[in-house]
């Protein structure tokens, strides 16, 4: 991964490049969630003890490929999407894949800082 590429896939997106997703939280309901970076997506997709992330995997794949510009990651998500597992398991499978990509980018951009690599 080149520094340029690392910078590209970790950049903060402009407002028309967002990924529109949602959070499910009872009893508040379903509320929209606009994602503006890969790091934000990584946080979002983990959910919390009391909420679930909600995202359309086809749109996610498209966003990673066309907006973030990471075809490798998009292909991995496409693989997850085709797996015969439930939605939450798909989300869980997504976490390490995105995390590995972020770590890789982080190690290229901040080789001096080893604590998170």
């Amino acid at each position: 991964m080149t520094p340029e590429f690392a910078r590209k896939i970790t950049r903060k997106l402009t407002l028309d490049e967002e990924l529109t997703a949602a959070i499910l939280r009872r009893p508040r309901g379903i509320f929209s969630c606009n994602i503006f970076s890969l790091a934000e997506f990584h946080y979002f997709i983990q959910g919390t003890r009391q909420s679930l992330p909600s995202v359309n995997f086809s749109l996610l794949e498209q966003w990673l490929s066309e907006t973030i510009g990471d075809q490798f990651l998009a292909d991995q998500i496409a693989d997850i999407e085709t797996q015969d597992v439930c939605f939450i398991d798909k989300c869980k499978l997504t976490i390490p894949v995105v995390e590995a990509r972020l770590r890789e980018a982080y190690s290229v951009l901040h080789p001096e800082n080893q604590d998170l690599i």
Partner: protein
Amino acid sequence: MTKLKGFAGKILHIDLNNLTHHVLPTQDYYEWGGGHGFGAKLFWDLSEDIEVVTDGRDPRNVITIAGSPFSGTNVPSAGGRCEVTNMSVGLIPRNRFTRSNFGGHFSSMMKHAGWDAVTVTGKAPYPVYIDVRNDHVMIRDASHLWGKDTHETQQIIQEDVASVEVASGWNGQLDGNSFGRTTQKASVLTIGPAGENQSALGCLIHGAGNAAGQGGNGAVFGSKNLKAISFIGTGAVDIADPEALIKARFKTRDFYAADIDKSAEFAFPSLGGKPEAITFSTMPTGHRVSSCHGCVNGCKQRNAIGYGNEVTCQTSVWYLGAVRSYKFGGNAKLSLAKTGVELTEDSLYAGDLANKLGINTYPIMGLIPWLQKMHAKGELGSGKEIHSELPYERLGTREFADQFCQAIATGTDIGAYFINGIVPGIQQLGHSADVDNGTLHYPYYGMPEHGYDPRAELEWGYATLMTDRDMNDHGLNWIYWTVNLAKLEGIDFPIPAEVLASRFVEKMAPYVQADEVSAMDYASHNMYSEVLARQVQWINHYGRFWKNSALMCDFRWPDCVNTHREDLRGATGNDEVGEHVWWNAVTGEGISYVDGIERGRRIFNLDNAIWALQGRHRDDAKFADYIYDHKMTHNKLPTYLWPATNGAGQWDYREMMGRQHSREGVEEWKSHYYRAEGWDTATGWPTRSLLEGMNMKDVADRLEQAGKLGNEEV
């Protein structure tokens, strides 16, 4: 005056025009049950000009804060709720008599002080607050409180009330000629700067975060120069049959208490569920669950971090998206370092801020991403088309939250556009299209979507159209959180769709027969059916009495299906633990479950008579355009399953996504609904025969006088 069991026996009428108070005997209002019933009848009796008041900030508005016989008792999840009714501020196409509700300890303390409700008319010549200590009522100068936030205000009042100390930890209060004692603090309901500035976004706050904001009741307090109402009482509630009450509590435990060893509880918390703070996101370490008076399963929290107490549900998420985007924007390190707690803390900070300033967070949440976009497009900012000096590049920080909330609360900067509500503000700015096309999710009456799209969750949309507000009734919504969570988790949902539908329908007496399972069939071929109109009728009438008047908490009642019991039958309508069992134990009456619903019908019809006088017409009851013009898509949601049949009549949990409402269909459904209620199908107004059949001839006469009486169906 006969003292009725369960009731305190007195309603406090405050006349701010003359700075006087009067006692109204509860006995005159007993048949209206409490809460909303009291509020509607008091509004009817005390409003001088229902027809001409068009805005809740008119001094002639009547605002009532009412408890019920259950307030101050240990009826499960019913002892601490409190109903607020008033003419609204900021709704479209017109304001109307509306309601809101909050929890905590206000209604219970009001009862302990000897009052069932407080109703306020007129406008004070200067800022005042109402200080009630048992029978002793004072309308006091609030100039030292005006401008203070809701937390400070409560603290100042509480310290003043507790200044009469007779022994360490015990406060003495004059009670007629004797001296009562309590360890409790005064319960205070107050506005912050948002209410003082009469913003439609202003709400009432009690405690750290118990809020009533729907309908702009903070602005109503502000318009009356009323800062706060405080009660302290040393009395208790006179229960008709304490033994029956305790027996029902034990029975409830036997039937429904959560089994701590069974962790696989994928149901929406129901009666008997585990107490759990419903604050969104990663909780700060060190918190404990707190609850309203007498609740068996509390849903709020106190935090060791010292703020964000009772910042629950909606208030804990209104700023979350902005915080997340700001913090994680392009910063891989933060995400990898798992800084969720930090993010939650910022959200709680913003929740606290809104509570302190007395801002209703529901409507402002949708505004945040809209402002962000307008700023990015160059249309919002200093000297721009929409002028604002706020630091939008720092949206997501505490600093921005501070400035934004100040602006909203004071009606300055960006807040100036939204002083009359979000949708009116958006319209005024020339961006109505964003509401019409669903960029902003405000599907009905200028109110934000609660979180459940009316194209999928039909009853939520329909009940809202037929009433005054976002219905905020989670009775059937239990289905969303059980069936869909199971699906998302890959669990084979163990209850067949038809069985689940039947269990709900069983509770819908007297409007739906136990074998009319189609009342829960949300298939597109059934979405405009007559039986679905009767289902919504049940929701509205059940709600008006048991929830809005008897004040049983929406998070726990109705308890239609309860997975803690093998036959899945919930407590609702049950002759050992149902609503009427509690009512009868507390009041000594002998009513049935359906009698309560019939009382709800009467209250609801009085509401509709008030709405008719206020100008409401069938044509008002419409969704925003996007609900009709656009399909509900899968673009952010994997599933929205609900019991439904296919063309062959086979039941299953079927997908509600991908559909939209049709205008003709909704109109057809409305006609079914009006017929079911006995309202004029052309106008939606109640008829004379209907009103007289409910002993409301005087209401019919007044409607006739105003030309607002519905025509009888020929």
